[in-house]
Structure formats: C-alpha cells, structure tokens
C-alpha cells in the first residue's frame, strides 16, 4: 500500500467512525413519524401521503435493524 493510500484509508476510517448510520436512520425514522403525526390536514391527499410515508418508515426500520446487527 502506497503512503498516499494509507492516508486515504486512515481518513476513511476516521470518517466512518465519526458517524453511526444506525443513528442517522433512527433520526430519519423519527422525522417520518413526526411528518405522519402532523395535525391540520385532512382529506384523501393526506391519507395517501400518510400511507406512503408509513411504508417508508417500515422499510427504514427493517434496514436500521440490519445496519445495527452488522455493527
């Protein structure tokens, strides 16, 4: 491995360790929950929006659990 590659590898390690993807996905799931629970808009368009966002939330929960299990 060349020195420049070593440096690049070290930067990637630091960068990856700085952020926990599971926490990011947790924040995204919380945002989606907040979006579905926002009051003040009713009607067919709101129902369609809530259905779509609830589906996204379920998919993200499943992916967050996998992310966490991979460490």
């Amino acid at each position, binding site marked *: 491995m060349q020195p420049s590659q070593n440096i690049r590898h070290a930067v990637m390690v630091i960068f990856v360790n700085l952020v926990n*993807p599971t926490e990011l996905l947790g924040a995204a799931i919380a945002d989606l929950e907040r979006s579905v629970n926002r009051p003040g808009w009713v*009607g067919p368009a709101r129902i369609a929006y809530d259905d779509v966002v609830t589906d*996204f939330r379920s998919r993200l929960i499943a992916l967050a659990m*996998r992310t966490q299990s991979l460490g």
Partner: protein
Amino acid sequence: MIPPISVESNTFRYTLDALLVRSDDLRRVAATVANAAMHVGLSARLNSAPERLVLQWELEHVVRDIAGVHADLEGVIATIEPSEWARAALATGGPWPAVRRVSEWVLTHAPWQSAAAPWEPVTMTRRIDNANAPRDFSERFARIPTGSERVRIDRFETASGPRFEVYLAGTDFAAGPDNPWWVGANTEMLASGASQSMSAAESALGYAGVTGTTPIVLTGHSQGGAIALAIANSGRYSVEAVFTAGTPAGLVESPANVPIVHVVHPEDPVPALGGVIRGTAGTTWIVHTEPRATGTEAHLAKNYQQSLGRVERVRDPGLLTLEERLRIDGHGTAMWFRSTLSE
C-alpha cells in the same frame, strides 16, 4: 385532477403550508438516509463486507423512492396559484397592517361618508311558505340570492322552536355607495369589523323574527361570508355554523366557538384580499376549479357551486357530521330581502 383538500385553520391556514412542511420533511429524510447509505458503503469497502454493499444498495433504493414522492409533492406545490402564495405571504402579517391603515384612512376621508344618508331598513321582496330545509353546504350555497335581493332567510318551525337558515350574497360590483352591498363595504369591514351591509343583514334578521336565542346557520359568498363571520362574532346571535365560499375571511375576526367551513379556489384572488384568517376556528377547503378558471371568473358563484359539489362528494366525516347535526326535517318559510340607502 387535484382533489379538494381541507386544512384546519388552527394549525395550517393554507394547503401551501401543509404541503411545504411535508415536502421539507421528505427532503430532510432523503438527505439523512443518503448520508447513512454513504457511510454504510464506505464501511463496506473498508471491511470488505459484501452484505454491507447490499445494504447500501437497499438504502439508496429507499432514498430514490422518497425523492420520487418529494418530487411529486413539489409538482403539486408548483401548481398552486400566485394568489395562494400571496395569502401565505400575507399570513406572515408583513404588509397587512399597512393595508388596514390605508383602509381606515379611506373610510375616514372618503367623500361619500359625508354624503351618505342612513340606510333604509330592508324590504322583503317576496316569500314562499313551502321551502324545503337544506341538507348540505352545497344546497345552502345554491340559495344565496342574486340581483337586487342580497339576503334570503328561511324559517323552520321545529319542536324546540323556530330555526333559521340565512343566505348572504356577496359584493354587488355594479352598485354605488347608495347600496350597502357595494364594494366599499369590504373596506368598512376591514377597518371597523362592521359595515352597512352587515347592518342591513341584521335588519333582515330582525324582520324575519331572529332573536338572540333562536338558532341560526349563516351561509355567504364573498362579502356575504365576511358578513356571516362578523354576525357570528358579534355575540348577539345564537349561531350554529358559518359556511363561506370565496370569502376574504381575514376581513373580520372569526368566532372561536362556532363551526366554520370555508371553501376557496386557489385561483380566486378575492379570498387573498382578506389576508390571514383571524381567529383559530374553522376548516378551509382548497378546491381547484375544474375546468381551470382564473381571476374574477374563479370568484363567480356558479364556479363555487360546482366546487362545492366536489367537496360534498369527498364525504369528509367532519363535514358530514356537521351537516347532519344541522339537519332540519319539514318545510318552512323563505323570505328574500333587498336594501338600498335612502336618497
């Protein structure tokens, strides 16, 4: 076709706010998940873990789906007419105090003020004694009078006493200051919360037998809706509900304890002229005209009548419950009124 959308006044005054805040939610979530996917991908390369590459691919797939819905939402927002954006801008309260001040000045200094004679008590032009009770908002709106008649009142005798349905016409754009329903009445309403048209409507209420304790339901188009709100807010009547269409509802205070349903066309500039809705009660239905009408065409009662049919077809539980609660069986007396100022 964009379906009718209802918005609770106490949280989101306009559809635009409701859509913008959700669009922002999706944009933020897509960015966060994309960030997570990137880190999972880096981690996969560092650790030579193919299962993480699969996970990254799946996360990116979710990001694309969320971005697709976000784009759809932005597409709907792009169809919202300039008048709706103007309403949202006015909702910030920025330019509105200045407009109110100008209205007050106009009201104080206008030449017709000194020339105006006291308004004539309303005249009942006709009556019929076998009127059916209206069943919904659409049927109420269809009863709003046109021409020189500006108020219709239906009186129904029930086991608990008389009940009234009041239908109020909007601004008579052909009228001058000798007619309480002329365009200047809107300025009066904005500056003082009352107008000669409101006085004339109250005179008609008294003529029809409405007292402070008899239940009334008010329905108005345009200025008629503002009169309805002002009457409901006066505390002088027992108002069960207010229905408005194409009304610049922000002209007057909205009562807090009365069910209110507004219907507006986003293409109609008139509701925007009222600025932000004052008060926290009520639901606003935003209905796009079909086929698309713009400007004054979008303000016409016939176009609102068509849109009200679309709102009723949504069969919104909240609206249906209100209409059912207001339902009256049997027949009553319908009375029409007109009013002009004395010479």
